[in-house]
């Protein structure tokens, strides 16, 4: 009986606590992939998290909502000109409906080393987390 009670408690606990934990894990996993992708200038690493419409605001005056296709190539093109040499997430907020993170991207543009602030936000659409915004200021 005691075992059954413990089992029930575990099941109840899992059903209550797991969704939140799962969300944190999923969001963190995406942020890690984005961090890895931005660190190497490899858009492939996180492009499957782009939604139908992703808001991009880049330092080369690209600003707006773009389709999944465009978002991929716009970022790819951006990184082909501005070659990343390092990216690290400094702040991240996972609570709320729109988890977001920010960091500093260091890159080389035509021989010049420079850095920009990066802001990324996510949103859950039909149980999947998608990137809604990437801003490189």
């Amino acid at each position, binding site marked *: 009986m005691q075992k059954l009670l413990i089992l029930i408690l575990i099941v109840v606990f899992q059903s209550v606590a797991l969704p939140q934990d799962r969300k944190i894990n999923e969001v963190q996993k995406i942020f890690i992939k984005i961090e890895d992708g931005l660190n190497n200038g490899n858009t492939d690493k996180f492009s499957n998290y782009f939604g139908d*419409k992703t*808001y*991009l*605001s880049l*330092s080369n*005056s*690209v*600003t*707006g*909502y*773009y*389709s*999944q*296709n*465009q978002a*991929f*190539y*716009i970022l*790819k*093109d951006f990184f082909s*000109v501005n070659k990343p040499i390092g990216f690290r997430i400094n*702040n991240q*907020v996972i609570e*709320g*409906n*729109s988890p*977001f993170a*920010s960091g500093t991207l260091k890159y*080389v543009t*035509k*021989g*010049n*080393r*420079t850095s920009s*602030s990066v*802001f990324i*936000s996510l*949103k859950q659409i039909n149980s999947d987390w998608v990137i*809604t915004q990437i*801003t490189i*200021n």
Partner: protein
Amino acid sequence: MRRIIKSQNKKGYFLFALISILVLSFFFESPINKYVKSNWNEILKSKIISIEEDIRKEVSKTESKLIDVINENRNLDLLLSHSNSLISIEVYDSNNKLVRWSNQNIHNDSLLTKLNHGLFVSSDERFFYFSYSDSLIYKDNLYRIIASLPIEKKYQFKGIYYENNNLSEILSKKEGVKVSINFSTNESLKTDGRVHAFIYYDTNKNAVCAFSFEKPFLDIELEYVSSIIESIRIIITFIILFFVFYGYKNLYLGESSETKKIFYLFVILLLLRILLFVLEIPAIFIKSSISDPVNFSSKFGYGLVSTPLELFLTLVLFTFFIYRTFRYLTGNLLATTVCVNKSEINFNYLKLSAIIIGSLFVLFSLRGLGASVKSIIFDSSIRYFKDFSLVPNLPQLLMLINLLMLGYSVFCFSTYIIFASIRYIKQRWGSKYFTFGYFLVFQLIGWLYDYFQKDPQGTSFIRFLFISLSFLIALFIFNKKELIKTAYLYIGFSASIISVSLLGYYNSLLEKESLKLTVQQFFDKDESITEFFVFKTIQDIKTNLFENNGNSEIKNYSPLAFNFWSKSFLYSESIPSSIDFYDSTGSYIGGFSTIPESNDTNSIFTNNINEEIKISREISPFTNNKLISGISEVKLNSIKKILVKIEAYYQLSNLINNPFPDFLKITQTGILSAADSKRLHVLEIGEGSLVSSIGDDIFGENDIVELTNSSFNSFNEAWAELNTNSKDFVFFIQKDKYHDHFIAAGMEIRDISLQLFDFFKVFLVHALLLSLIFIFTALILNRKKISQLFTFKINLTISFLIISIIPLLIMAIYFRNVTEEKNRELVIYKLGKRADQVFKYLDNYYNSSSANFAIINAKAKADLGVNYNIYEESKLLYSSNPNYYQSGVLSSNLNSTIYYELIGNRKNEILVNNEIENYKYQSYFVRYNLQGKELIFEVNDLFNTITVPYSDIEMDIFLFSSYSLAVILIIIISTLLAKQLSKPINKLVSATKGLAAGDFSVHVDHDRNDELKDLINGFNQMVKDLQDSQIKLSQLERETAWKEMARQVAHEIKNPLTPMKLSVQQLVASYEEKSPKFDSIFSKVTSILLNQIEILKNIASEFSNFARMPLYQIEEIELTDIIRNAIDLFAESKLSISFNESKSVLIKGDKQQLTRIFVNLIRNSIESGATNITINESIINNIVEILVKDNGKGIDEMIVPKIFDENFSTKSSGMGLGLYMAKNYLIYLKGNIIIEETSITGTTFKITIPVN
């Protein structure tokens, strides 16, 4: 490849050399890198020297510019009106008082007293300048001249109007290292292992400023070397592969089977495209808007269409392949022998199934076209209808060409399928009703196809139009029985009509998508993100304020505040916000704000403010929006500290209504840009009533109820159509989870006239492109006889066009200028009225109140809603938007031109075209006397919204679209009129040619009773008279000939008759006398008689030969020319004659005879009801074979064997000699003429002649 090298020709050696370089490049890369690494110190030193020299040269160039301006204009008036608009000139008298200036006045008196002659750095609130000081004696007075050129802006912001043309930026880009300028030479040079610095001295050896730059990095240098080697490899590889392809060209060109050729072409084009893609050609070399994925990018084809340029390359090759295949397959069907009897074609279920399946494939192709056009709209930031300009920019033009190529390929496919089906149906059943039935069945299949689809591509009308146009072109080709060039033009125009219609359709879908996105933005944004942005901005200020400014004393915090703000997320996310700085006691020391209501620059309480960033939320005292503020202490150094406070509004309407002036706006290029902001309406509805709205139209309570009662889906979203104010709107509505808060975004549905207007804007570009391609192709194909292209009809058409279009253009220019002038007058009127309102308000207030200047002005701004500036002399006294002047984004000094016009020339008002960065605006300046002071008021459209009925761009679009439509109509009408007018002339020309060739049967008909009627009647009468004369002449000639011949015959016959008579008389005498020599006489006489009879026979033969037809003039002739000349005689008839000629066919024959044969055959075809004749000329085994194929009623099988008989004719007026003589003559030439085939659908004659 081996073959090419073995051939030992130049190409082979060249190829071998290229391969060698390619191979060697792999061996050399590593040694080059090693060399760079091991000699890096020396390379670095030389690079540093080179960069320093470049920087010195650049500054020296600027110094020279300033010196030149002063030295070339040693006259004050000339100097002040010099041509370089960037250089400001200031003139000071001997007391260091500024007396005159051009552009801006930058310096103050105290600064000048310290100045020596030469170059120095100066600054105002906006720029750092290189200034050059010199003295000038003018009219016996000594003046100090300062010429200044801005080199570095103190402000910067992200946006389309900002251009970073700072000297440090230009040098950084040029040198590939980060270059900085330190304008203070008092500080010690910062140099370390990473940075090199030096001081720049002017020509007088005075220190001007210090430059520092990051030393080049080894890894970047190595990467640069590798990239150059890689680029060289790519080019070499491409050239090698091109040569390899070229070497095997005969594999394609030499192939006799067209099917194999098509297959080889497919393989070659596919390989070429893959090769270009793998080698990244030309993307690696072209980095411009046409290779920018913002303009278009799709993942389709693994990157083969990732940019407008890549899509263009892919489509060029694809369209060429489709065109070539279409030409082959359709041509093949046209060339296939038509069965004589339709009963020979069996009803075939397989073929019927193929027709139905073919129809489905045509519909699939339309679906494919729809999907492609959807991608062109949805995966692109180009707004084909909204951002239309008179001359499309390069990516827009390229994408329009891509669109046309897509449509062209699909139309080639659909036309072929329908053509093949019609051909089978026509052959099997013949009647046109069956073809019409097929058309109806096809349309029905199309309707069913879309009906059962979840998401059909395009509209029913577009599908109907697509099928109909494909049918029309297929029928056109079928009736013409050949692929004439006009068919390709029709395909092009049809492709344009359908693709542009689809473009319009998907654009309307994107507009709806942008409505949805507009609404979703409200629900996506989270105020915690705004909080984060405030936190992050303070954090950045704390990190960078000291780092950027070092120990130097910060004199003005406002420009700093603007620069921090413009780099922050608060700006990029369009959040109304402010950054304010306070000293340690809490007194305001500078800042920047974009919060319209905020004028609060009072001091703050410093209690509890420390290095921790404190964030708080409160409801705005001005609106119901949330105000998020953050505050923290910033340590500048160990002693000095200041406070920074940031405020930001979490305000929903700002997501649509950009809260900043236009020049600061960040232009969105994505999906959201699809909706025209002028047509956009956003409604915020709370508890059943309208809370706030954006847009020009007003929506009443009933409209709100209608919107909130829409049928919402499970995501609380709904689409609704609303009719209000006599306009139709479409709205997307979303409600929050509590169901009491709605956001609706909508726009007016474009009516049919606007849709047509949009259609024509893009269609015209296609029409122009197609016309150019058609004219260019016509010129290339007829390059040897271009002059012949300009026929009477063409000349008439061109004349009509010139006469009609020139007045149109003049009218368009006139309307444009009138609108421009009216707009200018309206702007002056509206701005002037506002300035007048402000003046009257201030004047009244001063007379009735004791409030101070600042308070009265603040009240005037609030009450009148007008933004304005007031200047005293040339200095700004008051501004409704002080932030932009204090931060140095806008100048607070009056431009010299305005000052001189208003104060010097005593003008009352002036309208000036101004510029902030690349953003243009208009400023109205007016001189008023306020309370005894002469002040200059400025009201501009930078901070005030001035609307004009038609902007210049709108006017251009209107004029271009409407006038282009008129031009199209003019072209169509001119062509028809020219055709109509030139018709009788062309008939006359054709008849004259026929007459010249000996055809006296020509007759020209003309129904109208005009001057031409007399001319044509005259011509017909002349032909008749000529014919009569010819007959009479022939009769006369014949009579004369007969008489002469009779005389000759008599004469010739007489000669032998005399000896014959004498001999016979001698024989009779010897017989009667019973002469013993009778036997010998008999023998002699018979011998004489026989001889004379032989002579008579010879004479008869001679005369017989003389009476024969004239002898042939056999010579070497070009057969192709003969056929072409014969065809030319029928050029103006309704008959369509196509001639597939061989290059050169030389035969021996008589020109006249051969021309007669071809004229005869063509005339026979016309008389048998043919409308189309195809003549094919080919050489097979030294025999030229000419097939003359018509679509007449054919020859009855019963008379086919007699057709070449003498005197046989089916015509009542015929002599039955034409074909008989043709056969005889051709046999004489060792050739022949036969009937190749004949049926009810036409006859083919085959002529063979040996080639010389």
